[in-house]
């Protein structure tokens, strides 16, 4: 093991290679995007900052209840007069246009995303933004093929969709929500997260460039109150939310008793199961990707490492060695592996839960990182000796903190993996295919990655079991979340 322990600084140090921000042409302040144009909000304004420097980026309008109402009305009018009457082929063409415009402005969007969110530019450039384009491209092709979606002939759109998205993948979550909604013929009012509104507002400019009819997509910025006003608006037909389980629960209560359709993509506490016959090098890379990708701000993050007892020490040693090579710092630096924590509030949550982990007897190890002076940072951290009852093995931390547990038999691994109210994702590492398939069958999770982790694709349905929410995003299933079944799936007496 000695030969891979890299503790010294030196030969792996790189000169800074920051991505230029000159490609960005930001305004000092942004209004709300309603009915095809930017307008002032009536709820005041807030400043969005870079979490890496705490420096302000722009002033962002806060949508009041009246603004939300105007946005819903614009969406309703666009639904009635334009979007629901337009041939699917034309809806598809608008989505193709949007996909292309995203590709053309990809670098700019990536820089904006990393600036506002704190994620490394390599991730926004190589993962987030390419997937945004792919999502629009995929659903564009569905718009004129809804009869083939397995929902009977002539499935119908739901109407106005209210969509509330989180801050961890700001533009990607927007794409997951807007692309299927529009392909199915719905119109949209979307609220980006309070700490990451920037890319959604640049996206609004793209919609103008695409000449999308006014009101088809409306973007209202603000905090939780704006989102709540949107969700409870009586003229909304569909609510789609990605975020925490506690807010999801609140939304489910709000929607109860209405005719609104609801899909929820909520928290997770995924088990990443490493068997002793796994390819250990790949598994270590997968563990790192599973929990330290995007600073662990991932609902499907592999935050519980379940490692077979006889390879525990080897896996943990290699993991520590690998983590010691990760570079933390400027999100816009192309050499950066670990960016900034998205907000002070989130940093405090991660710190608090990590302290609890230590207090409850977990053995804490953090990668040796130089923490920048300003901004919000948390070094990649692993806890060994964690038991299933530990707080850090039960609660979603949503940060770069891994809890390591052990198991002896596949049955024990499955029982521990399923021992959570969540059920979003899981990972399995083994070279034995029959074992992988048998374990995958028994995991109560919506996405199972075998010998890989944190893979996303517009063609692949994503979503949770149990308290991780309901409904799927991606693929034909994701389209179904925005459509009412056509007649022929009912009435089995024929």
């Amino acid at each position, binding site marked *: 093991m000695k030969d891979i322990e890299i503790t010294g600084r030196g030969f792996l140090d790189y000169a800074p290679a920051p991505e230029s921000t000159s490609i960005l042409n930001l305004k000092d302040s942004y209004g709300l995007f309603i009915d095809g144009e930017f307008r002032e909000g009536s709820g005041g304004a807030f400043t969005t900052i870079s979490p890496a420097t705490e420096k302000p980026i722009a002033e962002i309008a806060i949508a009041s209840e009246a603004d939300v109402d105007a946005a819903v009305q614009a969406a309703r009018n666009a639904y009635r007069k334009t979007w629901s009457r337009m041939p699917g082929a034309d809806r598809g063409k608008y989505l193709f246009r949007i996909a292309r415009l995203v590709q053309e402005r990809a670098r700019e969007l990536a820089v904006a995303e990393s600036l506002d969110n704190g994620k490394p530019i390599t991730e926004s450039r190589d993962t987030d933004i390419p997937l945004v384009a792919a999502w629009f491209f995929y659903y564009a092709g569905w718009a004129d093929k809804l009869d083939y979606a397995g929902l009977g002939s002539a499935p119908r759109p739901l109407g106005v969709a209210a969509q509330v998205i989180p801050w961890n993948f700001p533009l990607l979550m927007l794409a997951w929500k807007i692309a299927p909604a529009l392909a199915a013929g719905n119109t949209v009012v979307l609220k980006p997260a309070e700490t990451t509104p920037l890319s959604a507002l640049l996206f609004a400019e793209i919609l103008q460039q695409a000449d999308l009819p006014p009101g088809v997509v409306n973007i209202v910025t603000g905090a939780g109150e704006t989102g709540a006003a949107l969700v409870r608006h009586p003229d909304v037909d569909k609510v789609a939310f990605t975020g925490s389980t506690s807010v999801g629960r609140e939304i489910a209560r709000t929607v109860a008793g209405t005719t609104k359709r609801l899909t929820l993509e909520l928290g997770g506490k995924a088990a990443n199961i490493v068997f002793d016959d796994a390819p250990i090098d790949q598994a270590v890379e997968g563990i790192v990707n599973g929990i330290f990708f995007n600073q662990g701000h991932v609902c499907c993050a592999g935050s519980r490492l379940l490692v077979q007892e006889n390879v525990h020490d080897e896996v943990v040693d290699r993991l520590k060695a690998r983590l010691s090579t990760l570079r933390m710092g400027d999100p816009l630096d192309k050499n950066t592996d670990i960016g900034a924590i998205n907000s002070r509030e989130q940093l405090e949550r991660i710190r608090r839960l990590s302290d609890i982990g230590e207090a409850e007897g977990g053995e804490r190890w953090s990668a040796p990182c130089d923490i920048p002076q300003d901004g919000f940072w948390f070094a990649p951290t692993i806890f060994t000796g964690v038991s299933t009852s530990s707080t850090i093995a039960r609660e979603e931390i949503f940060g770069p903190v891994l809890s390591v547990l052990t198991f002896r038999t596949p049955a024990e691994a499955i029982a521990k993996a399923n021992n959570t109210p969540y059920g979003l994702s899981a990972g399995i590492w083994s070279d034995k295919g029959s074992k992988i398939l048998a374990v995958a069958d028994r995991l109560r999770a919506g996405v199972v990655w075998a010998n890989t982790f944190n893979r996303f694709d517009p063609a692949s*349905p994503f979503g949770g079991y149990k308290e991780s929410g309901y409904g799927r995003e991606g693929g034909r299933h994701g389209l179904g979340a925005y459509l009412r079944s056509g007649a022929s799936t009912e009435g089995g007496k024929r």
Partner: protein
Amino acid sequence: MSRLTVPKTYKLFIGGKFPRSESGRTYEVATADGRFLANAAQASRKDARDAVVAARAAVAGWAGATAYNRGQVLYRVAEVLDGRRAQFVDEIAAAEGVTAAVAGRQVDEAVDAWVWYAGWADKFAQVAGAGNPVAGPFFNISVPEPTGVVAIVAPQGGASLAGLVAVVAPALVAGNAVVVVADEAHPLSAVSLAEVLATSDVPGGVVNVLTGSPAEIAPWLAAHSDVNALDLAGAGKLDWVDLEIAAAETLTRVLRPEPGVPERSLDRILAFTETKTVWHTKSLL
């Protein structure tokens, strides 16, 4: 001189057994014109919780059975039900005040619904699943799996047998276990159906039948954290919004009330499934 009949004691159906309510309570079931028919067990909170425990214990076996096997068991229910057609016709005619012909049509519908849903057991996953063409060297497949324990308020005040089958059968197709609150006013055919289930190779606990007051029992089921899905088909006259709110606490899936006997539909099967997507790397040759 006519022979003195031997009336049946109508009890609950929990975990494959026929217990009385632990509360000791019963309520009178009457014909449409008000004559005494029988005493039915009036299920309590404890009975509801026992039923959920039984259902939970039964999920793994039923969900783990092959789809072919589940299909055969559901078809067997149709066979056994059809064989006891006369009993159900009499029971429905007496309880619901309809003619034997109307009652017969209801039994026919119930039998045919079992047959229809039985046939779906090894097909719905092909229709609702997908092989996904992802942009990378991965095998990627999506399959529907059972949600788990489904609590159901059966349609009330109408076609008691057909209504019950219309909500129970689709929930069973994918491998869920069920706790169902029967039609309060016409619970007898539900208990008789439980006898059919008990003799049709349906494993104990896969279907649990409670008779009594849905208004009393449903809140306990809606709030129960080991219930994964809640079908409010027959809850239209209850305070069902409160039930949906209670279900939100553990993100229990909810199907909202609908009038009458629900149509047979694939949607009803899929409402109690979760889609699992499995990715596996392909090596680069």
